């Protein structure tokens, strides 16, 4: 090392978090005795502005060329001190941190002396490593300014619309054969006269035919490589068996002999094996459900434009994008057979089924007919699958179901004024705009509310008559409501198989399985993985307004990234010493990110080569390399060895 080492050590009290256990003064005095340390100081909060100021001034006054801070975890304040170091005029990578809080004072609160000794050792190790640090510079990449959106519900559509409006090329994929998600199946919405399908139509107007938006339906994620600004995404496009020539004549469905329950109508009506998912589905192309298709070829024979090809195969495609928005939405809670009488009687339905029954385009053209008759008494059971009502229920509130239930109750009262409607509720949480007024209106319209704490029981007698028994909380009495129809108000759950998406993109989730934001309050549409954003109900129950707003928010965060020329990433990545690399390729096989390849430098000599855009700095290769050729910046063998030796010695 050519220049003389001048190290400054700063020990933080962290209020009493550290100083309450560790004898900070002792540690400072000890630090002064370490080799190359020219100054050692203590301060109550090093991360505060005055604390950082000390570092900046000392760098100038003492001509420091290494900085060590003994404080909290690097995951908390390493960036803070790196910045302070840089502002003091040093390369930010000439900074080293010793964690004497999480690793010391917090875990040894009752052993003050031992803790002080441990703190000294940790400082000694940090100083030893600091001596060997080398200046590094951030790695910059050009940003690929295209985006991928996973999920074509209202939130994904809103995000696609907003990105395209700013000229961003966007890929919008959905695993189902149509865009629209859940909202497209809802009837009249709360607060407005619009139906769910109208919201969908409003959004699709800007998406359909937009040359900046590539829509891939029946498409799922296979893998994601790369990092922020440069993701390489593999998709699999499952066959639709019908191509864009389809003119929606419907001849194929007429001749198709296979009838199966229509999932769009929640099984309340039938569709053919070749079908259009719903009237306004997008893309406007029929699709074959191969699981039920018998390959009789009837449809192929009648299609006037020859759009059907039963031999279509799944195809893989790879796209490169700079940012990814996950907008995979939610699934309705599916009660188990027998849970609240579900599936034991066809007079027990879910709120979604009711929405379809009341939709003028639904299976009964908007007439409430169950089992061939119009029910006179109807009981809604709220919080099914939510608020821990049953052992299987989720603990959270699904937020949208109360308002939606009340809205449907009012629709029913208006349409059939002589029906008696009971809402068995645990809590009424009508938080959305105008929803409290709806609740009031329900009261005025003779919708009766019965409060329960423990889940109501649905009784079905031999004749198939229904009744609902519950312990009414406001009266402290058990009551039984005779009824002709029970509507289970099911909540929202994480979408099926979301874990596959989550682990492919490597983002976190909460205890219930909804995807996790980087910070609930400060960064609600970002994830801990740079360049990956979240929109809509995939982070937890949301209504349409919130879903669309979060779609726009995610688009705006994505834009902030994609509008940059380049992104900078930490330079703590792997590097090969080509002189000693034997080209064994062990690292190539080990790297989980596919960042290493072999390059030929001379006829027979091949050495490893790290693609800095793909390397995540996990260190696997460095550990695996038998010849020590693979090293990692910031954690080189020599630096680690110096720390180990320091740790082994005496204080």
């Amino acid at each position: 090392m050519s220049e003389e080492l001048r190290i400054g050590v700063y020990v933080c009290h962290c209020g009493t978090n550290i100083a309450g256990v560790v004898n900070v003064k002792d540690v400072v005095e000890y630090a002064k005795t370490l080799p190359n340390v020219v100054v050692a100081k203590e301060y109550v909060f090093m991360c505060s502005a005055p604390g950082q100021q000390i570092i900046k001034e000392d760098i100038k006054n003492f001509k420091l060329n290494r900085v060590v801070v003994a404080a909290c975890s690097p995951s908390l304040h390493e960036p803070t001190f790196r910045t302070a170091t840089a502002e003091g005029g040093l390369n930010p990578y000439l900074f080293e941190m010793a964690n004497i809080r999480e690793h010391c004072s917090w875990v040894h609160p009752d052993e003050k002396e031992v803790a002080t000794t441990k703190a000294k050792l940790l400082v000694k190790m940090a100083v030893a490593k600091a001596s060997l640090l080398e200046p590094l510079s951030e790695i910059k990449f050009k940003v690929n300014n295209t985006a991928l959106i996973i999920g074509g519900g209202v939130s994904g559509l809103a995000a696609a619309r907003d990105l395209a409006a700013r000229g961003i090329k966007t890929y919008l994929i959905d695993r189902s054969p149509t865009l629209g998600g859940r909202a497209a199946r809802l009837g009249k919405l709360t607060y407005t006269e619009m139906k769910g399908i109208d919201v969908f139509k409003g959004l699709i107007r800007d998406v359909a035919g937009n040359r900046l938006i590539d829509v891939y339906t029946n498409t799922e994620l296979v893998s994601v490589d790369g990092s922020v600004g440069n993701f390489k995404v593999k998709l699999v496009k499952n066959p639709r068996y019908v191509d864009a020539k389809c003119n929606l004549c419907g001849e194929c469905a007429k001749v198709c002999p296979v009838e199966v329950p229509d999932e769009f109508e929640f099984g309340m009506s039938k569709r053919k094996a070749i079908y259009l998912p719903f009237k306004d589905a997008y893309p406007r192309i029929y699709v074959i459900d191969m699981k039920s298709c018998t390959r009789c070829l009837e449809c192929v024979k009648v299609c006037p434009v020859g759009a059907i090809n039963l031999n279509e195969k799944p195809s893989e495609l790879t796209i490169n994008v700079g940012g990814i928005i996950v907008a995979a939405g939610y699934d309705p809670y599916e009660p188990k057979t027998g849970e609240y009488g579900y599936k034991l009687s066809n007079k027990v339905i879910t709120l979604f089924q009711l929405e379809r029954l009341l939709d003028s385009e639904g299976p009964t053209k908007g007439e409430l007919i169950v089992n061939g008759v119009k029910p006179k008494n109807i009981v809604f059971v709220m919080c099914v699958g939510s608020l821990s009502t049953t052992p299987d229920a989720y603990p959270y509130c699904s937020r949208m179901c109360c308002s939606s239930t009340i809205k449907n109750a009012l629709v029913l009262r208006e349409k059939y004024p002589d029906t008696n409607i009971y809402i068995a509720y645990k809590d009424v949480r009508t938080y959305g705009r105008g929803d409290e007024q709806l609740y009031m209106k329900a009261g005025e319209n003779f919708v009766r509310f019965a409060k329960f704490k423990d889940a109501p029981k649905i009784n079905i007698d031999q004749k198939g008559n229904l009744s609902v028994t519950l312990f009414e909380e406001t009266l402290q009495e058990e009551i039984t409501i005779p009824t002709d129809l029970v509507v289970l108000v099911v909540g929202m759950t994480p979408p099926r198989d979301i874990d596959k998406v989550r682990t492919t993109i490597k983002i976190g989730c909460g205890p219930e399985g909804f995807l996790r934001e980087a910070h609930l309050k400060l960064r609600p549409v970002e994830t801990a993985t740079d360049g990956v954003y979240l929109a809509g109900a995939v982070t937890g129950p949301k209504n349409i307004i919130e879903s669309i707003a979060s779609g726009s928010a995610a688009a705006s965060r994505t834009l902030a990234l994609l509008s940059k020329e380049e992104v900078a990433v930490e330079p703590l990545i792997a590097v090969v010493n080509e002189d000693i690399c034997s080209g064994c390729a062990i690292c190539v096989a080990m790297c989980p990110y596919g960042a290493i390849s072999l390059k030929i430098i001379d006829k027979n000599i091949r050495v490893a080569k790290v693609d800095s855009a793909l390397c995540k700095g996990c260190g696997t290769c460095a550990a695996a390399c038998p010849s020590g050729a693979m090293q990692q910046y910031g954690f080189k063998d020599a630096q680690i060895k110096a720390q180990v030796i320091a740790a082994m010695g005496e204080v």
Partner: protein
Amino acid sequence: MTYLVPQHPLQLVELGAERFSRCFNCGNCTAICPITKEKASYPRKLIRYSLLGMEDKILSSTDPWLCYYCGECSDQCPRDANPGSFMMSLRRYLTTKYDWTGFSKLMYYSKKAEVIAIIVVAAIVGSIIYLLHGPIVETRVELETFAPYLTTEIGALTVLFVLAGILLSNLYRMYRFVMRDENGNRIRVPLGFMIRDFIRIVPLHFLTQIKIKECKDRQKNWINHLIIFYGYAASFILFVPLLKFTQTNDPFLFVNPLSILGIFSTIALLYGASIAIYGRVKKTQPMWKDSHSTDWMFLILLLLTTITGILTGIFRTFGFPLPTYIMYSLHLMIAAPFLILEVPFAKWSHLAYRPFALYFESLKERYLASKR
């Protein structure tokens, strides 16, 4: 466990409780009510019972009769559910339920039926007078000859007994509904207690209606109520048991104590009825805000009975024979439907139900105390 009757609350809407379905169970009404008791929880609880359709709970409750409609609850209700008018409607509802003849239902649920019933009774009385009246003396007022005492008295006493009979049987039905525990099982109290409590409670409250005073600022109401009550009671005694002395040919003599009582009672009725009609038209008090057709009919018939009575007296005093006979016939034609229909089947029956509610309540308390 209660099996709900979903249709039940809809009846209350017809009986005047239009807005109670707005109730969201906050309990403000019960908190503010000056007479709801520690353990009772009305109006809130009764509203919840009704709204959910727990008909049996309503039938076995005496609480509606304890409320005098001061309207404090309606003023405080954050949802403008008008619990006071709901309590009122419950009293109407219970009146229709206690009554076994079905007349009460008819009167309360159909204005048309009510008017027809009144006209029919008036017509019957009219035909009886037409068929049975005595000779018409045109030279001087001979009321005793026109309306022979025996005939009129038999008519008056028949009315009295029918009335009392119906009221008593309805009170018995009330007893059967009310004397049940929370599970709907019948309860009985030893005869000794039944007699003791009856003596202790019923006459006092029947005669003083003192409970009204528990409502806030109700001194004036209480006095009004007493004026109408005693005016009515006095006229009733004068013209039914004492008919022999009041249905005379003589002009009013201001020295005759019966005449003086008669004058006072008619003035009291005139005053009371006018105040109530004025109050209901102007809606000066909460309890006068939700007038049902039976309330109007009651007051109108009361007023007409009084006025025709007074006019009969005036014509008689000034010696106009024909006008006296005609007015007296009219008087009877109005008084009879008033007494026969409005009193036992509609609003006026509360005179009996209120003190008996207190009585049954006390019996129930005794039963519960013995259980404890």
